[in-house]
């Protein structure tokens, strides 16, 4: 049984970026890295230490799971371990985005009123 308490809201930037990268389907480690880089327009460059440390914590928290080994047709014929979101991971992403929206709404309201 996964422990739900290891990764809690608010999510760390690394966890949020990985959840976002996996929101469109399963990816392997390098694929996640490239997607994070693309999603952040090159501002976030995650190394293997941060990536796999975060993956470990997220797996323990039940946010993601391994979806087996397979070949990436866009790369070579080597089989890579893929990771995918669980329903808990998707729910955590939705909740985090909702939290961001409410923070942005508060901030915009304050700025509009000149406080």
């Amino acid at each position, binding site marked *: 049984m996964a422990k739900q308490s290891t990764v809690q809201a608010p999510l760390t930037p690394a966890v949020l970026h990985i959840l976002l990268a996996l929101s469109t389907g399963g990816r392997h480690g390098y694929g996640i890295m490239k997607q994070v880089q693309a999603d952040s327009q090159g501002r976030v460059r995650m190394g293997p230490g941060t990536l796999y440390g975060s993956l*470990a914590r997220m797996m323990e928290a039940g946010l993601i799971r391994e979806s087996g080994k397979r070949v990436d047709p866009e790369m070579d014929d080597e089989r890579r371990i893929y990771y995918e979101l669980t329903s808990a991971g998707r729910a955590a992403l939705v909740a985090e985005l909702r939290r961001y929206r409410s923070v942005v709404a508060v901030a915009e309201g304050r700025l509009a009123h000149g406080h």
Partner: protein
Amino acid sequence: MATEGTVRRWRAWYSRLLRLYPRPFRERFGEGMEQTFRDLCREHGNGGRGLFALALRVFCETLAGIVKERAMQLSQMGRTVLRVALGALAALMVPLVASQVVEGWNWPPEAFLRVYVLFFLTGMLFALVSRRMAVWQYKAGVGVALAAGFALGWSNMVHVAGTGNLANLWYYSVLAVGAGGALLSRLKARGLSRTLFVMAALLVLISVLVPSGAPPDMARRMAIGHGVNAGLFIAAGFLFRRAALAEPNRAPSQ
């Protein structure tokens, strides 16, 4: 541009660096990390760039990850030790309270200390061994086997001290077989299952062949106790067998 030999050399160094991770982490993610490093090297090589800057950045970042994982492992171990120490203290309350209310129960202080150490060691064994597989059958098997082993060792120690019959020391061979089997099987569920069945058979054999030297009433109670113990060993053996079937292709996790 990096040559094939340079790439191979950096990959070999990276592989060595990954050995510094805690073993469970390395077993689970080492292969993926090596693959990712290879992919990064390939990407840089295709871009016509040298690998030194990339390797330096990735090595430093990975080293920081290793320090973090090691620190977390130490902190987890500290929490486990504290929990087990408190659990052993709670368990010690049973003989402590009993010594106050049961007639003739007069343990010296060092006996309580010995019992506390035994409780603590058994608890630590459970905490360390049971985390090797995630399935509940494995954890339950470890718990039942340790409880039965503790009961056998404890009751036998009390009996030898009470009767002076050294033939009862034969019962410790059951525990020795258990320890040997656990080491040989490297705590894998299938091997532990066989070990527990052998322990049960050996316990029954010894209780039939070795004279207890006790009066008939006590000998009957001992036979029942050994029967219960053998039953617990068999139950633990079946739990380990179920654990092996539940996770046949997965290496022990933590």
